């Protein structure tokens, strides 16, 4: 069992948790993920590591409540325990001094982009970061991102904070105005698809971190497979980062939607159970 040492409600749907996991913290690097399971009936869900503290022996995760599993996890408090916390999984981000890089984090994708931006900054890159969300409430870690970036652009879809724009707009402007050597984009699949489409005409290498459906997270099930131009790859074992220009985005989006009906059913059941519990 893995104890929750800290919890922060970032917004109605975004929660941060600090988990006691000294062995994982010892090894974790930017770009890797963990598999989390709330209790004995729970699903195994992959979450990219948002931060780690080797001295304190902790891993920080940030998740958005999108389904039953994440909603249930959101109800846990400091002192509660998670049934499974396995990692660090996947390959770490390839970090070197590329020159000038852009790190794009959309929505809950701000969490995994943070340790990557930090590592790139430490490696000597000029880091320009773009963070965005649907509205002000869904933004977080602006201060942390600012601290590891040479420049930070903040935008919201509805203009409730920062610039009213999708992340692709400032990204395109940067590509037009400056020499950009590499781009990282992490967020919802649709955002990553359009970031890939934005950078492709400029020929700038672009890395995305894919969050597909997984079970074991170690290469055993193949449920996470993604179609690249050179063939299928497993996100868990070969990734989670890939060349954005090689990904078959439409297939990826379709595969993410495959269990939508079941997810809806599980949420309805969960909400019903919560109501019943509130009554008793």
């Amino acid at each position: 069992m893995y104890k929750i040492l800290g919890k922060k409600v970032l917004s109605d749907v975004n929660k941060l948790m600090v988990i006691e996991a000294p062995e994982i913290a010892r090894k974790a690097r930017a770009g890797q993920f963990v598999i989390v399971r709330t209790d004995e009936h729970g699903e195994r869900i992959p979450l990219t590591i948002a931060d780690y503290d080797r001295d304190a022996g902790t891993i920080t995760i940030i998740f958005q409540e999108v389904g039953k599993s994440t909603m249930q996890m959101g109800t846990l408090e400091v002192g509660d325990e998670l049934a499974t916390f396995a990692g660090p999984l996947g390959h770490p981000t390839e970090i070197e001094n590329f020159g000038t890089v852009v790190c794009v984090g959309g929505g809950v994708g701000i969490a995994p982009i943070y340790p990557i931006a930090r590592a790139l900054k430490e490696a000597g890159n000029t880091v320009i970061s773009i963070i965005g969300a649907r509205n002000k409430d869904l933004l977080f870690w602006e201060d942390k991102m600012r601290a590891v970036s040479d420049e930070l652009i903040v935008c919201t879809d509805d203009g409730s904070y920062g610039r009213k724009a999708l992340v692709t707009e400032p990204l395109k402007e940067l590509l037009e105005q400056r020499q950009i050597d590499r781009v990282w984009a992490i967020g919802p699949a649709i955002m990553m698809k359009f970031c890939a489409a934005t950078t492709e005409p400029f020929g700038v290498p672009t890395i995305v971190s894919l969050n597909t459906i997984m079970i074991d997270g170690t290469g055993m099930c193949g449920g996470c497979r993604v179609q690249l131009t050179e063939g299928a790859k497993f996100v868990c074992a070969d990734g989670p980062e890939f060349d954005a220009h090689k990904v078959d985005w439409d297939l990826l989006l379709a595969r993410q939607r495959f269990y939508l009906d079941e997810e809806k059913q599980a949420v309805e059941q969960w909400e019903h159970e919560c109501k019943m519990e509130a009554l008793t």
Partner: protein
Amino acid sequence: MTELTNRERMKIPRQEMPTQDPEIRRTNYDEVALGFTPELAQQEADRCIQCKKPQCMEGCPVGVLIPEFIKALREGDIAGSIRAMKEKNNLPAICGRVCPQETQCEAMCVLGKKGKPVAIGRLERYIGDYELIHRTCPLERPESTGKRVAIIGTGPAGLTCAVDLGKAGHEVVMFESLHSPGGVLVYGIPEFRLPKSVVHAEIDYAAECLGIRVRTDAVIGRLYTIDELLNEEGFDAVFLGTGAGLPSFLRIPGINYNGVLSANEFLTRVNLMKGYRFPEYDTPVKVGQKVAVIGAGNVAMDAARCNLRLQALQEMEGAEVHIVYRRSPAEVPARAEEFHHAEEEGVIFDFLTNPVEIYGDENKVVSGMRCIRMELGEPDESGRRRPIPIAGSEFDMDVDMVIMALGTSPNPIVFADAGGLERSKWGTVVADEDTGRTTKPKTWAGGDVVTGAATVISAMGAGKRAAADIDGFLQGEIDPW
């Protein structure tokens, strides 16, 4: 009671094990084979004529003292029977259920020459189940040698190796990447064939007796490398029993559509994650109405039979499960009983058929499968007749789910930073067959990670041989490197 003569013994018919009726069992997830009653076990044990030169043991990969355990059972000494069993096999409730006895011990039984062999597997299961409840002869933990062994993987090979090393007095820590120990016994083999309660009871019993520590959620290669275990974590030896977990997919168009999945994914969702009880358990499993399972090994049979049950639980109409296999019934690699049970339960077999393309709809969900008919040519290197496509024989199958059960290869994650560990071009670890020694000092391997996908019992045999060699090394009797 007067002693039976051999002639009398040979007249006793082989006792059938009670099973759930096919019509009923295909609608539930409970175990199909119900096990011998004490009376049936006695009758069956009485059939054994106690050969002077028993052949049965020759057929057993772990050398179970078959005549001894049956003799004790015959005499009503069940504790003695279990003691004889545990000389060589500490997991009888598992082996009795999943070993291919018809090609091993029972194939060698002299009674099989003129009639039917002694049902050794069913007797093994009988005493194994008895022991899990009554604990007549717990394994004894000798004084500690002070030596520490890391066992990577908690499947059949690792479990067997761990128990034998524990019995020798070494301190054993097992590392499991998933949240539950047992490996393929838990994620792969379905509940109705091998109840998970049996697997957990066997593991807990042995681990408790011998003080073996089982660490779940520990992905070796990521959390610790093999080198770190040996050089920093204070282990004197490492045994690698990580199996063959990486699924293979056909290289045909449409293979990544929704609804095409590996048997590993399907079985893991159903067995390990208990998807058949969704939404009580959170992991969903899709149920196809017309399902094609590609391949005809044990894993294919398991996947097909799980599908039948899921369809029945949902009371799905017009439901079909096909096994699509490129060779003929004679080449089916599955255990005879599994093939038989699958047929009984209504799986449709499409032999000499091979998929060439999977069709998808506008949502990229499987909508059909194009196949080609095959014929058998000359035997290939495996000794089986090679299937050859018949030109122009393509046809379409109406399916909405395709499950790939084409075999698996070792998962490479564990090999991270394992310098000096030689592997074959198939990704399997190169290890000596008799000792399990790899090319890397202090590192042994056995089971599917060495052989590629094989059987539970052959993995157990490899775990056992490696344990003996590791023990010799730790006692300072041998230094192979």
